[in-house]
């Protein structure tokens, strides 16, 4: 009879383990299958009229940031950080590209003007680039090394420490 009594708590053990696993996992953290893989190629029309492609940036470390003027407050908070990082590292070969998704051009231009963006930014008609990069929200940032490999993906607003660390990592790799 005693083993029967022990059966009920024993049966609960796998359930508790499963629940412990479930509750410790962040359902919003969706690992990107693109990390450590070649970055998908893209071509966007920059707001000043030029075309920019990943192919054309071959050999350069790239920070690819997806943003939108309606993305408040995260995009507004990280925008100055992006511009500052671009100025700090562009002479070392860093390339920063902004992809503006599902936005109105006037609003996007106002956003870029507000933060004095000098790095290239362009819209993503049809969200093709966004879908190709598995973007599901804004902001999202991809760090691409000189070999064109995605080394890191960050979902949400960037912090000074995180962008510094990731930019240094992609600059270092030869």
């Amino acid at each position, binding site marked *: 009879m005693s083993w029967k009594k022990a059966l009920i708590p024993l049966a609960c053990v796998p359930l508790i383990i*499963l629940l412990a696993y479930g509750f410790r996992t962040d359902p919003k953290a*969706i*690992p*990107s*299958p*693109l990390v450590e893989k070649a970055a*998908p190629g893209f071509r966007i029309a920059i707001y000043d009229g030029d075309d920019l492609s990943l192919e054309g940036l071959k050999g350069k470390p790239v920070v690819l940031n997806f943003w939108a003027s309606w993305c408040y407050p995260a995009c507004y908070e990280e925008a100055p950080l992006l511009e500052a990082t671009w100025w700090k590292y562009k002479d070392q070969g860093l390339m920063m590209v902004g992809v503006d998704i*599902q936005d109105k051009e006037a609003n996007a231009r106002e956003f870029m003007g507000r933060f004095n963006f000098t790095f290239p930014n362009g819209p993503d008609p*049809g*969200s*093709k680039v*966004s*879908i*190709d*990069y*598995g973007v*599901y*929200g804004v902001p999202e940032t991809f760090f691409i090394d000189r070999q064109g490999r995605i080394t890191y993906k960050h979902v949400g607003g960037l912090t000074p420490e995180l962008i510094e660390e990731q930019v240094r990592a992609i600059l270092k790799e030869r």
Partner: protein
Amino acid sequence: MGLHRRRPGRPGSIATRRRERWALALLACLSLLMPLAAPAATGPAKADAGVSSPDLEERVRDVASELRCVVCQNLSVADSPSDLAKEMRNLIRELLQQGKSREEIKAYFVSRYGDFVLLEPPKRGFNLLVWGLPFAALLVGACGVYLVAKRWTERGHQAAPPLDPAYAERVRRELKEREGRAGS
């Protein structure tokens, strides 16, 4: 008469018990088969859609209904009104027009978003738990129901405690008195 039927001490014949056990076992089996019957009923409809030549929009909807809208809560790309889902549907349409198959399109989305984008998790690895646990729980539940029901029926068949002769005599006497009163 009703009182008689509910009395726990009335033993049933061996044949009755056997019939009851068979009925219980059948019930347990049926409860296991019920959930299997539902997908089996919807299965052929889906397969037919693939065999016949539905128009493009139907095929877009077909593929989109298997993909998760990544900015929504439990909505498919087919059902979501969000801008991203709309763009995804446009992309599916484009890929279908290019001659890509449903599996190729799904594989493309998985390569970008991971398995998360599939509304139905693939049957491998840790996901097997999702597929297996409901059936395991159902099996355990059915066994539990069977055991409990068996215990109840067995308890029902136990012989009643012997009736106190003095009490039986008193009941008989009072009944007779009552009948006598009613007759007069």
